[in-house]
Every structure is written in C-alpha cells, then in structure tokens.
C-alpha cells in the first residue's frame, strides 16, 4: 500500500469516549440498514444530550454518516461509514437522496415509448437491447429497471401488454411471450373518456347531497349551468 493511499484514510481526530464507542457499536451493528436516532436512544439507554454529542463527534470523525430514509424522510438515520445504505433505506434504484427521481423515470418512459412506436411490437428484452445498442442514456439502466418502467407505462395506459400470437406482426416473437405495443388510436388523447365523467354528475363532489328538490338539485346545479352555458 502506498503512502498516498495511507494518507487518504480517515484518521479519527478526536478521542472517543465511552458513550461514543457505545453509539458507534450500535450503529455498526445495524450494518446497511441504518438506525433512527430515536431507536439509538432506546438501544443505548443514553440521554438525548449525550447521544447528540456522540453523533456530532462521530460525524466529525467521519466514522458515521447521515442518510435520508426514503420512506421516513423526517427521521434522521445514521449508518457506519464503511456501509452503503440498503435498498430499503434509499428506496431502490429510482430514488436519489430519498426522493423519487421523476426526471429520470420520465426520461426513460419517453424513450421506451419512442422505441415501442418505432418497433411496433416489442418485448421487454427487445426494449432493453435497443437501449444497450444505441446507448440512449448517460446512466446505465438494468433490464429489471426497463421492465419496471414498461409495467408502469401499462398501468398508465400509455402502452398495452399483449401475449404474442406468433401471427402477423408478432411473427418474430415466440407465441405466448409478453410484449408491448401502443394502444390503438391517438396516444396523446389518453384513455377513453367514460360516459359518466362526460357529464357534471360523474365527478360531482356533492353528488351524495344532490336530490331533486334539495338545496343541491339538478335544476339549480352550478356545474350544470356552467356545462350548458353556450
């Protein structure tokens, strides 16, 4: 090991007292799962003041680090410096600093849609291969991530999932394999508008209070007046 590397290693500047060591021990025992400061208090049986002081000390010594828990953003979590936070803590690959990386997700969705439009019918592997071959993103994404994106796009009705029939445009895909395609009609129009939501009553927040002769009634309804205001 070179001298340069040796120098890079964090050296504890302050001397650890008994309480610091106790806190560090508990944090280390949690490994990549991290620990909430309140739980730390429970497990160490130390007072708030002592714990705060120890945490400060340990942070300054770079022996521990603070992490944002994706599901409990308001709660301070600590992890030993040698561990990386687990998927449960970070929220998985779609989270950055505890926040859902919507920009990245939207970018991937957009690219997937373009690929499906271009290839007409394609499997999840097909989309992933297209990504890899054409290096469409700066960051690497896994085949699992692409599958997750496609699944959410199906739930959004941006694309539909169908099983290959092996006939016509499905001829290159094995029969029964799940593949993706654009829904018929204009994609930008979104899902078909239902009959009930085409009239004011379909989405009326006061529908339960509406009666023929009541204070809220179809004859006095403000939503109707607005709807029929030609």
């Amino acid at each position, binding site marked *: 090991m070179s001298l340069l590397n040796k120098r890079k290693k964090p050296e504890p500047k302050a001397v650890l007292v008994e309480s610091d060591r106790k806190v560090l021990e508990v944090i280390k025992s949690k490994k990549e799962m991290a620990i909430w400061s309140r739980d730390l208090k429970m497990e160490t049986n130390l007072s708030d003041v002592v714990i705060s002081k120890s945490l400060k000390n340990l942070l300054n010594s770079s022996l521990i680090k603070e992490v944002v828990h*994706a*599901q409990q953003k308001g709660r301070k979590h600590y992890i030993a410096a040698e561990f990386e936070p687990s998927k449960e803590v970070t929220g*998985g690959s*779609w989270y950055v600093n505890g*926040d*859902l990386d*919507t920009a990245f*997700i939207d970018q991937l969705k957009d690219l997937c849609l373009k690929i499906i439009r271009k290839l007409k019918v394609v499997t999840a592997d097909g989309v992933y291969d297209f990504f890899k071959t054409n290096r469409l993103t700066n960051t690497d994404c896994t085949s699992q991530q692409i599958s*997750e994106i496609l*699944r*959410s796009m199906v*739930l*959004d*009705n941006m694309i539909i999932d*169908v099983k290959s*029939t092996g*006939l*016509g445009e499905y001829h290159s895909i094995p029969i029964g394999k799940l593949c993706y395609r654009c*829904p*018929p*009609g204009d994609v930008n129009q979104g*899902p*078909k*508008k*239902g*009959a*009930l*939501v*085409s*009239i004011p*009553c*379909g*989405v009326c927040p006061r*529908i339960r209070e*509406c009666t*023929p002769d009541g204070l809220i*009634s*179809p*004859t006095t*309804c403000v939503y*109707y007046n607005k*709807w*029929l205001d*030609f």
Partner: protein
Amino acid sequence: MFRDINATPRRRGRDHCRTKFSAETPDMTSPYGIKLSVHLISTYFGDIVSKVCECLLRKGTLSHAQIMHSTELSKQNVTNSLLVLIQHNCVQSFAIQQPGGFGEPPKIVTKYMALHDNIIHHMRFPKFLSIVSNEFGQDCTEIFEGLLQHGRLSMNQIMDRHKDKHKALVTDGENSKVTSTLHENFNKLAQARYIERCPAHEPFLEPVEEGAKKRMAKSKIGDFSQTLEARALAAAAPMESIRFLVETDAWSNGALDDDSKNSPSTKIPGEKRKHDSLEPETESWATNKNKEILWRVNFEEFVRRLRHKSCVSHVTTRMDSVAGIVLTAIFEASRKDETKVKMEKTVPLLLETIFEEAMKSEEGRSLTLGRVRGSLVQMGCELPTIGIDEIYSIDLKTIIDKAQTLEVESVVLKKYGREAYRIFRLLSESERSFETDKISATTFVEKKDALKILFQLWKDDFLHMERIEAQKTEIMLWKLNKRSVWEQVLDDMYHAALNLKLRLVHELEQAKDILRVLKGKSLGDEVLEKRRRVGDKWKVLEASLMILDDAIMLFHHF
C-alpha cells in the same frame, strides 16, 4: 393479527342500510334505479300510476289490498293504475295459493310485481326504434312504434291503427294489398324476434312443498332463480315454440290462441278459485285473451342487439376494425342460436363459417382467412393444435368486464388524478391484496402520496383495507372492493340519468316561458339565437342521456 378496518361504525351503518334495502326489493334494484323508474312512470302515466309503481318497486310483490293499504289510494285508482302498468309491460301479475286462517280452506290471491328493467326500457325506445328503422324501414317502424306506444296490441288493433293513419291513401280495392303488406311486415318483426306474444296475464303458481320452502328461505337473496318473482315470470312466458309464431288466419277476430290456452303456463284453476278484489279486470282480461293474441315488443332481443353492438365497439376501439368485423360476423352467424342475453361465450363456429359471414359485409370483403384467424386469436381464442375443424368461440364476459373496468377507471382518473388511476388499475388487475410499499414501487408514486391516495379511495368505498401487525411494524394491505364499487357506479349512473331527465324538464319549462313571451312577435336575430341555444342544450342533454344509458346497460344488462 388482523384488524378489519371495514368494521368501523360508519361502514357498518351504511352497509346495513344497503342490505336492508336489497332485502326489500325483488331484484336488488339500486336506490336511484327506483327513483328513475318512478320518474319515468310519472312522466308517461301520471302521479297516481307512479305511486302504485313506486309502492311495488320499494315493497316488492304485493296483492291489490296491500297496494291499497300502502298507497292509500281508492280501489278504482289502484285497479286502473295496475291495468295501465300491465298494458305497458311494467307489472306482471300472478296467482298463488295462500293458507286460510282458522280452519278456512286455502285461498287464491293475485299478486303484482313491478318489472324494473321493463320500466327503464321506456327510456330506450328511441334506440329500439332506430334499430328497427335501420333494418326494416318505415313500414315496419310504424307497426313497431304502435307497440311501443300502446304496450300490447293485437294484430287487428295494429291493422285498425294502420288504417286510421292512412285513411286518405287507401281505397277499398287496395285494402287487401295493404293487409298483406302489413302482415308481411309484422311477420318480419316476429321473425327477427323484435316482437313477441305477450306473457300469460295471470299464471297460477303451484304451492311449493314445505321442505322446498325452507330451502328457498335459506337461500333467499343471491339466488334469484328460486324466488317467487322468477317463478312467476317463467310461468307467464309463452312457450318458445309459439313465442314468435304468427298465425296466418289470425287476422280475423276468430283466431283463438289455442296453444297458449292449452299451455300449462296459462292454466288457472277457475272453478276452485276464490276471486279477489281484482275480479272485474281479470275477467275482462280473460275474455280479451280468448279473442285475440296480444303482441308486445321483445325487449330481450334489443338488449341482446345492443350488447353485441357494445362488444363490437369495444373490440374495435381496443384492438382494430378487423376484430370488430369478425365479431359482427360471429354474432350474425349465430343469431338464431343464442339462448340467453348474457351469453358468456359466443356460439362455437367454424373458421370458414365466420369467414364466409365476414365476406358478406363490404368492409370484410378484403379479409383473408389468415387475417380472420389472427383477429380471433387476438380476441383471446387459442389456436387449435390438432384437428381438422378450426372452431372458435369468443369470451364475451371478458370483453364486457374490460369495458366496465374502463368506465370505472375513467371516473377514478377524472376524480382522483393520474397517480390514483395507476394505483386503481394495478388493484383492478387482480383480486388479491397489495401492500402499500409494493403499490408505491410498482406505480412510481412516493409512499406518502400513495398512502394519501389509498386512504382517499378507501374513504370513498373503492378499497378494502386490512392492517397486519408483524414484528413491531404495521403493514397495510389494500384490495379493490369490486362488487361494491360496481354497484355504486351503477347507482351513480341512475342518479346522473335522473338528473339529466330532471334538467331536461327544467330546460323545457324555461323554454316555454321564452316561447310564450315571443308569441305573436316577429322573430328577430336575438330570438333566433336564444332558440338555437335552447336547442343546443336539449341536444347535449338528450345525447348525454343516451350515452349514459349505454353505460347503464353495460353495467346492468350485459
């Protein structure tokens, strides 16, 4: 450890009301379904008739005396109202034997049941009329219109009606020609099953044995086929062999309905019968029945047609126009073989038969056998692995289910937003429960937001929630309350349809005022503009009602 959140007092109260309501009504009609029916009857036949109808809809099957007691109407009013309702196929009567008290012999009592579906069908007459008009033209439409207007008519009455209408045009010499044309058109309607012989006026239901009665009481709701009402309808229905039979010599008054007279469904043990309060009209009915066969519109056939239309439209939108053409061909080829309206699957047909039928239509002429096969597979059929004959049957239930889900999804999207829409679609895909984290991860909704949406949907009765406590952590499981959501959506649809109807009446009244003021004055631009606006409002309301009614049919009849 399980804790069912549905067991809160709020929920229990609401569910209790719903169950209580269901138990009282014969066919579990929704509250606003009843209100809409009552409004329709009130509009068409007046308040007294609607009062009797409402009483039957709310309280279930009743005798004449019970109706009088509940409505506090006079005997004559109740009798007349019942006659109007029976004439327009909104009520079915039947006779049952009831045990007499204190050593008295059993007596025969006539009961009356409201036919909710038939009442709501009155709103659909323009649709039915347009189907007949498109298929058979003006002459058939006239006959059909008569039946819609009068409920039940004999052939002679139809003939008289026709003569009255075309009095000026028909000379004596042409009379026989007119008669034969009318007969021909009438035959066409019967052949197409658009009209049918009326059911027996008052079938007698044999008493149910004691053991069977107990079984029936236990199964009560949920097994409609065993109810008294279902038995009455089955007993009243004419036999299939004569249901659409037009007798060639029936144009004279002497044509006696021998078949129906002898059929077991219409047998009433007259000599044993003790006449109840409705004696006068039942007798007049019986006399009338002996004279002529009465005909009415066969609503069932129209519901079937509209169901087909809805399925075709759905596959065309979801897949492509070829799927629509192929499904239309299947319906056409199996038209006579469908036994009931709610067929879960189409009648199995050979690929060649479907292809030949598709080729008959202009749009289907360019299709190849391979393309038709591809479309059938796309609609969920499996390719036969071995075998000489390729037989296909389309799963219609899946198509209907999908169409219903789309309707509910559109409500969720508009009411709760895009993220809720994704969550709802995830939950509606399968009947199992999903954990909050899983929902959040699959739909790309932050857990905090996902929880907010899930709680909102739960509060509005869309979801069922279950808390599971395991290892100090609490997991929440969410599941779609499909049955209750679908019932609620249907009730909302009836409510919305009633509101559209009421608004139409309101707009009409408003327009009357405008027209009254304008009477006698020359029409200026401003007046014309006002009239145009009123016309537009009516058009929007009428069109919306028809579209909404398609959705009601999708949820209730299909």
